[in-house]
């Protein structure tokens, strides 16, 4: 090999209309290294990767300036096909899977294994018949190598989000001739243990000589996995250094231009809880693949922030999804003393429950519509808010929507040009903030938030937690927060429920010893009953 870098992107500049989203950025990746790419939401990471992968959005918006060298040679990548031909694979920030296809069909999409037949001998290899058995075998092997044990003929539509991510990675691994893989926030939808699993998969890929560009907002993952780190801020290169010459605080500083933000901590309060039950769950079963709930009982008190933690696959995510009616469920659920019908999302919304789903990458946002319309959408549809009377008609009140959207943009630090920007043109993290804003706009009596800070940069993280805390303290909103980051739960929750094997393993206080959390997560209740 006569080249030092498998990839060089030199002096890349990209404009979207008026705004310059990349300005003379340079990125150099060595063979076989894991190269972390860091930056705040909207810093330009995904844009840089879209350029590398020849995504149509880049060329439809006037292309870019700069030079891309792959394996030492200058190349012009005009399409994903061209990128693939050069041995570049990509796991996009949005899912690139076909929901109606099986895992095998997705892994082998456009790389199907086929057998010649009579017709194909005459009309060409497009007409060869698929060899489902061999395809399934390859898919199985790829799934095994990323440690996923779900049957390969499962429809992708029915998979939980975390598994979809692994399917995408399995697809990239299955490709031959790959030199460079781009993972755009692969861990954003993963729990901590799944993320660890992913990191070990990445290391074994890198050990085979394949380079990896790894985008994440979790700095500890960077420390664990990466060899080199490059940081962008506002579309400019801040710096690039080997991991041995940096540390958490240094990286955080490079990203946001100041030291690491302290994580929010709620002043501990002795239970000023009303003592009334807000949500009563009895004998709840939820059929959510990979996150099944099996006979869960729980009382959520009015006015508290209750955290739901636990390992991946134990059912903590199944609880909000079951109560909201998004997955088939049985059992008894009462909300503020009234029975809540299950399997009926509209009823749940109408009763004043709102939910920020863990699965919010792109889904659920109307991507062509503006930020303000997205924020107001549910409130207009379900609660008939933001309407003014004009004679006998009700019309949308543009002014109040605008004012509200501006407030949300400020509170959550949504990086955008204006409230009328289309959500489809926001960066991934900022799209998620719009999802949160929309749920809060419903003025819910009861809020489920699932993984609220995933994919959100370290600076904005505390803003989100802060907002939740303020809504709770100022408006008495009852919040159930599902998170796989224990730190986050302990920072603002009044009580923390640990779910194991689909049931409540224990309910702990945020200041309970680490050991108790560890025990509860493995399904063991601490000796000393801690009913708070």
């Amino acid at each position: 090999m006569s080249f030092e870098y498998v990839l060089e992107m030199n002096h890349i500049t990209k404009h979207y209309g008026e705004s310059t989203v990349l300005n003379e950025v340079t990125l150099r990746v060595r063979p076989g290294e894991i190269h972390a790419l860091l930056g705040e939401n909207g810093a330009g990471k995904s844009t840089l990767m879209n350029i590398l992968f020849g995504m149509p959005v880049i060329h439809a918006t006037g292309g870019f300036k700069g030079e891309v060298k792959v394996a030492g040679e200058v190349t012009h990548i005009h399409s994903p096909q061209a990128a693939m031909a050069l041995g570049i694979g990509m796991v996009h920030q949005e899912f690139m899977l076909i929901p109606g296809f099986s895992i095998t069909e997705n892994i082998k999409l456009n790389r199907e294994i086929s057998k010649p037949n009579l017709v194909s001998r005459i009309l060409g290899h497009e007409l060869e018949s698929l060899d489902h058995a061999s395809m399934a075998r390859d898919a199985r092997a790829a799934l095994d190598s990323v440690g996923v044990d779900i049957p390969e003929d499962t429809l992708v539509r029915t998979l939980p989000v975390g598994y979809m991510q692994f399917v995408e990675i399995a697809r990239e691994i299955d490709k031959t001739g790959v030199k460079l893989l781009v993972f755009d926030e692969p861990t954003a939808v993963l729990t901590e243990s799944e993320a660890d699993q992913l990191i070990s998969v990445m290391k074994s890929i890198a050990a085979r000589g394949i380079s990896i560009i790894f985008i994440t907002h979790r700095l500890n993952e960077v420390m664990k996995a990466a060899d080199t780190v490059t940081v962008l801020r506002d579309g400019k290169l801040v710096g690039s250094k080997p991991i041995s010459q940096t540390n958490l605080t240094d990286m955080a500083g490079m990203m946001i231009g100041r030291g690491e933000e302290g994580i929010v901590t709620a002043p501990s309060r002795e239970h000023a809880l009303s003592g009334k039950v807000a949500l009563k769950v009895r004998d709840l079963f939820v059929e959510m693949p990979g996150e099944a709930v099996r006979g869960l009982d729980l009382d959520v008190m009015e006015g508290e922030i209750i955290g739901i933690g636990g390992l991946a696959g134990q059912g903590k995510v199944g609880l909000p999804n079951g109560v909201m009616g998004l997955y088939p469920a049985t059992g008894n659920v009462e909300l503020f003393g009234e029975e809540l019908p299950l399997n009926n999302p509209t009823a749940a919304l109408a009763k004043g429950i709102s939910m920020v789903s863990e699965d919010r990458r792109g889904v659920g946002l109307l991507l062509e519509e503006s930020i303000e319309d997205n924020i107001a959408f549910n409130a207009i549809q379900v609660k008939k808010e933001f309407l003014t009377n004009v004679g006998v008609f009700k019309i949308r009140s543009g002014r109040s929507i605008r004012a509200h959207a501006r407030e949300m943009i400020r509170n959550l630090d949504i990086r955008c040009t204006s409230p009328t920007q289309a959500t489809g043109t926001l960066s991934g993290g900022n799209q998620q903030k719009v999802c949160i804003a929309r749920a809060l706009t419903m003025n819910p009596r009861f809020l489920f938030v699932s993984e609220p800070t995933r994919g959100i940069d370290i600076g904005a993280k505390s803003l989100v937690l802060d907002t939740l805390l303020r809504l709770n303290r100022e408006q008495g909103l009852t919040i159930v927060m599902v998170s796989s980051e224990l730190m986050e739960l302990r920072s603002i929750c009044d009580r923390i429920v640990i779910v194991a094997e689909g049931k409540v393993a224990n309910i702990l206080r945020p200041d309970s010893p680490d050991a108790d959390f560890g025990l509860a997560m493995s399904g063991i209740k601490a000796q000393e009953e801690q009913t708070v």
Partner: protein
Amino acid sequence: MAERVVKRKDLREAARENLREYIVTYVFLALSVLFVVVSGRPLNDIFSQIVGRLSRNLFIVLALIIPIIAGMGINFAITIGAMAAQVGLMLVINWELEGITGLLAAAGITLPLAAFFGFLIGSLLNKMKGQETIGSLILGYFANGAYQLLFLFIFGNIIPLSDKVTIVGASGVANTLNMMGGGLYMAIDKIWSLPFTTALYGVSAVIVLASLALYFLKKISLKRLLALAVPAVFLSLVVLLVPPVYQVVKGTSVPMVTFLLVGVLCVFNVIIMRTRLGQKFRAVGQSRTVANAAGINVNRVRVIAIMISTVLAGWGQIIFIQNLGTLQTYAAHEMVGLYAGAAILVGGASLNRATNTQAVVGTLLFHILFTVSQDAGKNLFGNANIGEFFRVFIAYGVIAVALVMHTWRSNAIRKKNSLQA
């Protein structure tokens, strides 16, 4: 226990889902029964008409399936395929080619013509993604203009033709081309035709034997074997043992080769989906973005889908015309796209999902209504013309409803998704 409860709910939910999805089909089923009763026509007469209509119409309807699966909606531009076929037929009559040779020649001319037009249509539809159904409808009308020009002025004047297809003193190709003389009339149908009963027993026997053989060769499961063999045996037994049914079907004869061609197309539609190309059709149909990111040339796949559909529709038109025996030069193609599109929608297909069964069931129901609507109109309103209006009304009505339902459903899904997050 929880699992069982969930299952029972699933069943009821599935029934409701089925009703919601096939509401159009059920309404048409009810209408068909009603109209058949009201028309007062003898059943054996209706039955033999329906068999005839199925034999000449099914092929074209089946030609719509691939573009639907590729996410391009209903390809109303199959009309253009029919025009290509009519060019072929006209030339064949002009050259005085006879019988099956003549039809094969027409099919041979249709292939490159329709493929070329399909390429143009596909390329144009790629410029209007999301609006393909309307786009293809308009393209069909537009092409009709070009077709008129071709047949009225270019043929006969610039390209000389014999007096077989022109009228002395008038410009262009004659209005009506008679195919009775050249032995083109029913050239396919006549090859081999059997009484319905014989055909049914024969086909049933073949199905039973073939599926048994496949089962013992372990190519199909027991369930599949039963699903194939039981209906075949059952139908034969009904005809054999229930005299009223026998009375209805006994006078009808079946053009075996025509139906064989239809069968081959059904098998083709299934088999192609199991090839690399078919996988691309399905992927592009479900998500252009994902397909593109996987390196599939989306535009090319869509063009291929339309090309195949256009060629098949052309061949379907040849089958149709040989059965009629006359070619209405300036009208024969006009309703092709509309009627075929309506038929497949009646069968429960939507703008993004279609199967062979839906095509067959839809064609059956649509043509039952067609056959009896005049008599039903006469008996109900004392006016046969009302039945005639009714046909056109149904065809446009079904399509309008399907378009509205499609938009409505995709909006509902969009809304549901956004409420969840």
